[in-house]
Each structure stands twice: as structure tokens, then as C-alpha cells.
């Protein structure tokens, strides 16, 4: 029985205060004089709590999380790798953290240098001509990339007719959602038996209405599309552009460059490949890299260098416009550049090689106890099917929940949609063989438990701060703020211990 977990609004009260502000050392005029006739609010129901209690509240909450510094986090497609601490330190240097985009280029040479160096490095890594660092997430990058494609088609007078984007059925949900944001239509092509896209079906839908194809490389099964260059060539042949979803770039760095595979544009998730911490949901960074023909359309402003001085150039008549109020997630980009600089050219290549090695090792091991729908060498991740456990009444969701009891996070589940009961596993290169073995043992034990004690899995997790949560009730009752009444109180457990 620790102190009941309460929301902060239920703690403290009048007289409780956090850190104080400097005294107001300018003339203290009545607000009514400074804000004449302005309607002010009557009440403000924020908590009043002391610093010690605020600290305890949030530290207690923090301990309820799984996180990469706690253990394996094999979320497929998310590249949950170690986040070096130095990167956070650098991003919080006062000269960077306090720099203001409207202070002018003269005042911001350091910040502009970060953007410039990162853009150069990303262009080199991806094999493209130019990079914008304005988009702040993968999906934001997708939208930006599609806008660039639209602008290019328009510049060629084809803006009206090209309104379809071809997306494989294994694609991430943001792809069709981004297409929709353009007012365009998504055309889904199915995957063939080898998990590559079905070329003939693709050919059938490619035409002069096609604005772009949008492929994830390697795809969300962790497999490299063998025919990728034929595919991009086919698309180009009908005048379409080729967009690469770069969420899986961690498999490719130093091995092959998307620009060399026929793509015209891609986004990069720096919160995946370049290790910027995910922050419980964000912030990330979604820079977009483009071939030369798309460069004129990049969001303004762009960074240019002349005689060692950097400046933001706004005068970009063909630009699609701004996609962010300022310069993108700068603090995140500092981290990405620091990461790239730490690894260096060889380290970057080793990163991808080790990501591939780790994934293949784990795949080879787990293929003995789980179904492997596509038995090929994988790149940085692979997808298993939990279908074989259904006979015991066990589903992939149960496997996922049970894994939590082993101190590891669950893989991505039920995605990609084309694999039944999918378990999408991405160990990343920063895990040791020890960790992979432990994960494999857990997965193997779960297979045994499915046969022997399936209820153990249905009831999992058993060691997490809470058991399975009623998501249906959440959606029905819509308790979305603390103003809504709390659900019927749970049992208050007496302290554990056998009397």
C-alpha cells in the first residue's frame, strides 16, 4: 500500500506552491489599466502542488514505463536503438537551445551550420541532391514529398491528371493517409508470394494518372524488393515519380543509397535511423531528400552557404511553401548530426550491417518455433506469424502481452496487415547477443506455455503495473480529461505479503 496513485489535480491545494518567480521589479500597475476592457477569466483549475510532490508524482509515473534504457524494444519498423546521452547534452547547449529563428542569419550561424552539415550528410547517405529538414516526422515528410511531386507534375502541366499514388498493401498507414491529405487517391497493389510487389499487378495500374509510386525499402516485412530498379524504371516510364518511405533506412546505410535505386524523393525518420530519442511519442524529425529535379520545389527557406557564411534563402519562387512555422525540429536534428558524426562513415555502415546481422540471427533462431511466412534473408527486421498458436486458443496479442513479463517490450503486432497474426521484430544493432538470446528464450518459452498453460498467456501481463486495460470502455465512456468522473474505483489492494 503505497500512497494511492492520484492525479496531480487531486494533490496539494491552497498554499502549496512550486518554484517562485523573480519579484516584479517593474512598476506594478493594475491589470485593468494595462488590459483595459479585456475580459479576463474567472477561474483556472490547475493544480497547486509543491516541487517535491510534483517531482515525486512524475518520477513515480516514469517508473511505470518500459523504455530503451530498461531493455529490448523490438518494435518492428520503429528502430528502437540506444540513444547516446551525449546527443541530448549537445542539443541543450544554451547557444543552441536559446537561438531564435527571427534573430537573423548573422546571429544564428551556429544553428544554420547544424542544419547545413546535417543536410549534406543526409544527402550523401541517401544519394540525393538536396535535403529539407523542415518536416518534423515521417508522416510530415511523406506529405512534403508528395507535395514536391505534385509541384513537379504541375510544373510540367500534368498537375491535373496525376492524382493517384500506388502503394503496396504492406505499407504503413501513414502512406495512404498522406496521399489522402493531398486530395489524391491511393491505389493498393498486392504483394506477391515472395513478399515483393506483384509486378504484373503493378504494371496494370501504372498509367498517366499515376502521380507516384510509394514504396518502403526494405519493405515492412524487412525484405528488400529485388526488382526495385525495374519498378522505379516502370514508374518513370509512365511519367510517375518514385517516393521512398525511408522509415527502414537503418538497413541500408553505407550499403545502398535510395538515390541509386531510381527513387526521386524520400523521407528519413531521424528518430529511427539516427537514434534521436522517441520521447514517448515524439518529437522526431522527417527530413526529405530529393533528386535535383525536385530541388526547386523544396519548402522555403533553404540554407545556403557562401564564403563560409550561411543564410536562409526565402526567395524560392517554385517552393511548395512552408510546412512548419520555423526550421523543423532543430533540437532533434542536432542529435541526429551528432549521431552521424560519432559513428563516422565506417561506423554508419557497420550500424546497418549489424542491424541486419542481429535480425537474421534472431530470425534463424525463431523460425524454429514460429511460422516464418517469407523464408528469405531479411534486412533489419522480419515478420513472424503467430497463426500456429491459434489451435491453442492463443493469439499474437497474447504473445505480445506475455513478453512484457520477461522485461522486454512486445514486437509490433498485427502489422503489416498482409501477414496473419503478424509479429514484426526489429532488434536493432545496439543489442548484444545476450539480449537477443534472452528474447529468443522468452519467445520459445511462450510457445511451450501456449500449449501447456494457455490461460497464463490470456491473463498476461502478470508483472506489469496494470493488467490488460478495457479499451472498449475507454472508447465508449470517453473520459478524456480529469474533469470527467473517474471510473468506478478499483479494488484497493492491501500490501502484499503472506500472513
Amino acid at each position: 500500500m503505497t500512497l494511492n496513485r492520484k492525479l496531480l489535480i487531486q494533490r496539494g491545494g491552497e498554499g502549496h506552491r512550486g518554484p517562485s518567480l523573480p519579484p516584479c521589479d517593474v512598476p506594478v500597475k493594475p491589470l485593468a489599466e494595462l488590459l483595459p476592457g479585456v475580459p479576463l477569466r474567472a477561474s483556472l483549475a490547475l493544480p497547486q502542488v509543491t516541487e517535491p510532490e510534483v517531482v515525486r508524482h512524475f518520477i513515480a509515473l516514469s517508473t511505470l514505463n518500459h523504455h530503451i534504457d530498461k531493455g529490448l524494444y523490438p518494435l518492428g519498423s520503429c528502430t528502437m536503438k540506444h540513444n547516446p546521452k551525449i546527443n541530448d547534452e549537445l542539443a541543450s547547449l544554451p547557444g543552441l537551445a536559446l537561438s531564435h529563428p527571427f534573430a537573423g542569419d548573422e546571429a544564428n550561424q551556429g544553428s544554420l551550420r547544424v542544419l547545413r552539415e546535417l543536410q549534406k550528410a543526409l544527402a550523401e547517405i541517401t544519394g540525393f541532391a538536396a535535403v529539407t529538414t523542415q518536416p518534423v516526422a515521417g508522416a510530415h515528410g511523406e506529405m512534403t514529398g508528395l507535395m514536391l511531386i505534385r509541384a513537379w507534375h504541375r510544373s510540367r502541366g500534368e498537375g491535373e491528371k496525376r492524382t493517384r499514388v500506388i502503394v503496396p498493401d504492406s505499407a504503413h498507414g501513414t502512406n495512404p493517409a498522406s496521399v489522402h491529405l493531398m486530395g489524391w487517391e491511393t491505389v493498393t497493389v498486392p504483394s506477391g508470394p515472395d513478399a515483393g510487389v506483384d509486378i504484373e499487378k503493378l504494371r496494370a495500374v501504372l498509367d498517366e494518372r499515376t502521380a507516384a509510386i510509394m514504396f518502403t525499402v526494405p519493405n515492412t516485412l524487412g525484405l528488400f524488393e529485388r526488382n526495385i530498379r525495374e519498378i522505379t524504371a516502370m514508374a518513370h516510364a509512365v511519367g510517375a515519380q518514385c517516393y521512398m518511405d525511408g522509415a527502414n533506412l537503418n538497413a541500408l546505410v553505407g550499403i545502398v543509397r535510395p538515390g541509386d535505386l531510381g527513387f526521386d524523393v524520400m523521407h528519413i525518420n531521424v528518430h529511427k535511423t539516427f537514434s534521436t530519442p522517441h520521447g514517448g511519442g515524439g518529437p522526431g524529425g522527417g527530413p526529405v531528400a530529393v533528386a535535383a529535379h525536385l530541388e526547386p520545389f523544396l519548402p522555403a527557406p533553404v540554407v545556403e552557404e557562401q564564403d563560409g557564411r550561411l543564410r536562409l534563402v526565402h526567395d524560392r519562387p517554385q517552393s511548395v511553401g512552408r510546412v512548419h512555422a520555423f526550421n523543423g525540429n532543430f533540437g532533434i536534428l542536432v542529435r541526429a548530426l551528432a549521431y552521424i558524426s560519432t559513428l563516422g562513415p565506417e561506423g554508419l555502415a557497420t550500424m546497418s550491417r549489424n542491424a541486419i546481422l542481429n535480425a537474421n540471427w534472431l530470425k534463424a533462431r525463431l523460425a524454429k518455433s514460429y511460422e516464418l511466412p517469407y523464408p528469405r534473408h531479411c534486412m533489419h527486421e522480419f515478420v513472424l506469424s503467430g497463426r500456429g498458436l491459434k489451435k491453442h486458443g492463443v493469439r499474437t496479442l497474447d504473445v505480445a502481452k506475455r513478453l512484457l513479463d520477461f522485461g522486454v517490450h512486445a514486437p509490433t503486432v498485427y502489422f503489416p496487415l498482409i501477414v496473419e497474426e503478424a509479429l514484426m521484430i526489429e532488434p536493432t544493432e545496439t543489442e548484444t547477443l545476450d539480449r537477443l538470446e534472452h528474447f529468443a528464450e522468452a519467445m520459445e518459452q511462450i510457445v511451450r506455455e501456449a500449449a501447456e498453460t494457455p490461460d497464463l498467456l490470456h491473463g498476461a501481463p502478470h508483472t506489469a503495473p496494470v493488467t490488460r486495460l478495457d479499451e472498449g470502455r475507454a472508447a465508449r465512456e470517453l473520459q478524456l480529461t480529469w474533469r470527467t468522473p473517474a471510473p468506478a474505483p478499483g479494488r484497493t489492494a492491501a500490501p502484499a505479503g503472506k500472513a
Partner: protein
Amino acid sequence: MLRDIGVAAFEDLVDAVPADARLKRPLRTPGPLSEVELRRQVGRWSESNAAARAVSFMGAGLYDHYIPSAVNAIAGRSEFATAYTPYQPEVAQGTLTVIFEFQSMIAELTGCDVANASMYDGSTAVAEAALLARSQTGRARIVVAGALHPNYLDVLRTYLDGKGLTVVTDKGGQCAPEDLQAALGPDVAAVVYQHPNFYGLLESPRTLHRLAHGAGALAIAVCDPVSLALLDPPGAAADGDPGADVVVGEAQALGNPPSFGGPLLGFFACKLGLVRRMPGRIVGRTVDTQGREGYVLTLQTREQHIRREKATSNICTNQGLLATRATIYLSLMGREGMREVAEQCVRRTHRCLELAEAIPGYRRAHDGAFFREFALECPVDAAVVCAAGRAAGVLPGVDLGQFRPAWKRWLLVTATEQRSAEDIDRWAQVLRTAGGAR
């Protein structure tokens, strides 16, 4: 490991990658650099920014507020910083509870029923609000009423592909109701207004709401959350006005540094009736199988990973850690602290104006009540004042000439609670120097 995998060489694993497309040379990227070298290099870059030393009177959507040390100490914990999106709620109650508290506090500040877990920034929150209005009303035109941040307007234009956007220019800084009235019509999906607006001036939200609603359009308010600690919250009903339908804005000011404009913290709050069209993640309270309270991502059927092209938005990764910081910040400051922050910003900024008006050649660009920011018309180009400031270790404000040539004598000035009376005196001295009137 290769043996376990059953291949002879690493190359066998990547045989699907066309051999002739492969990179056959090392990458030409910087490094490898040790931490010692990185600190030296990035440290040098940091020092070469004026912000390393100067005191700032710059705002225009990014503010240099006091950030309690505890915010950094808590939010920097691996548990918050290195967790992914809370897809397995049983091991993510920390993140989920924080988001629930964030939603609650944003709802309270804005006067709305609900808020989401964050947007990319204030500008994209505005754009998503406009898209929501379109799909809610089935109408196409978005009317921007008065002085919206020019960069927000740019982003809105980008998102709307430049179509269906009407800007009702401000009159003397504020939106004139009659001008807005004239721009309205049955094709209008929403009226978007900023309050306090780009110039720091206060609008008349209730009037704008009535006009918007009168035309069957939604009212979308764009607000500075610091101002909401004092101002009548536009999302709340009052005097027969049901309030803005959507309130969005930038919450960087709540515990986050300006950081050259990112990462930021867009927020999005609205009426309960719009919640199923709201973009982004939402956390709801529920119970576990043992009846204990807990939190989950809810209404996910709005989202791209479930609904794909039918999703309300394509947003996936958001600005979570900044929402965590804002939640800690608001908790530390509390009701009284937030009020005091807002009051001090008002008082210190008004003090700036008082001093400036005493210097020959300087005067306000607009009349009307302002909150914590005002445009100052200078006797010289604002760029001259900024240059004088840089030399004196002061960033005296935002040179509005960078937005429009016509504004080149305008300096947008703000003073947060961090600027002491002494700082403000130094600021005034910069004005004197630049204006030639010592």
C-alpha cells in the same frame, strides 16, 4: 553469428540488393568523432550563436520563458525520453497518464472539452483545424480574420494547396468585424483568428465567434497558452456564445526552449462533438481486468494506422516529450504561478513600451490593448536596432521587415518574466543608441 544464420558471408544476407547499385566506397560523412571532439565542435557552433550570450526580447511565437530546473531533471529521465509511443499500455502508464494530465490542462486553459496529445507545432495545428472544419462542414473556404502569424499563414496555405483561403486583413492591427462579415458566406468552413494576434493585440473573440457561427462556419481560435492563464478562455461558453469550436496554438512557452524553432508543441483542443474528427492521439481513462484505473490510447479508429486513407490526419509521431515537459511545467507553476507568469509578461512588456515611448522617434505601430507583445515603430529600420542590440548583447525584438518590406521599421517586442528591470533598461539604451538620441 553468421554460422548460426547459415551463411558464409555477410554479403549473402543482402543478396537481394542489386550488386551494381550498391555503394562501393565509404560514405563521405563527417567523423568519427569522440565525445570530446563533438563537444568541442558543437560547443563552438553554440557559442557562435548570439543567443549564447544575449538577452532576448524576441517572441513572435517563440518565447524565452523561465524553465524550472525540475522540468529538465524529470523529462530527461530515460523512462520518458527513450520510450516509444504507448502502444502497449500495460508498460506505458507513465506516458499515458502524463498525456491525460496534459489533455486535461490544455482543456482547462482553452476552455474546451477535450484536447489531444499534441501536434507538430502551432502552425500545423491551425492547418489541421482548417481541414477538420472542411470535413465537418462540407464547405471549402477558410477565412483568416486579421493578423495571423505570417508563417502560420504560409503553412496553412501550403496545407490548403493555396485554395479556398481568404485573408481578411487587419485594420490598424485588429480584425474589423465588418470586414469579416463581408468576407463570410455559405461556403465558409471556418473563421480562424489569432488572439492575442501576431502583433500581440487582443481581438474580440466573442464577436468573431458570433459572426462565424452566424454564417454556419466553425470558429477556430489560435492562442498563446500563457495568455490563457489570464484571458477569458475562447473555448468556453459565455454570454450566449458557445465558444470557439476549436482552439489551437503553440505551447513551446510552457517549459520548452525556443531551440531555433523546434521541437515545438502544437496543441489542439475542441468541443466534444468534434472529437471523432480530431487529428492525432488521444488518451482516455479506463480500468484494467482487476478494476484498477488506467489509461489507453483511444478513438484510434480516427488514426492512420487503423483507418489508413480514411484517417482524420496522417500524423503519427507527434511532439510527446514536449507535452511531458509542458505538463511538468504547468504542475510546478500551478494556477498561481501561471497567473503570475502571465501578469509579469504583461507588466514587463508594457514597461518596455513606456520606456520606448519616452525615446524620441519611437512609437507604437498600433492602438488597442495588447497582451505581452507589441509592434514598435522605430525612427530607423528595425534591422538597425537589431544590429545595435547584437553589439550590446541584446536581441531587442523581431525585425518585422523580414516578413514584409512595408514593415521594415517595425520591431516586435516582448519581455518575459525572465527580463529584469535592468535588462529592460539596457534594451531601452539600445533603442536610444540606434535611434541616435542618446
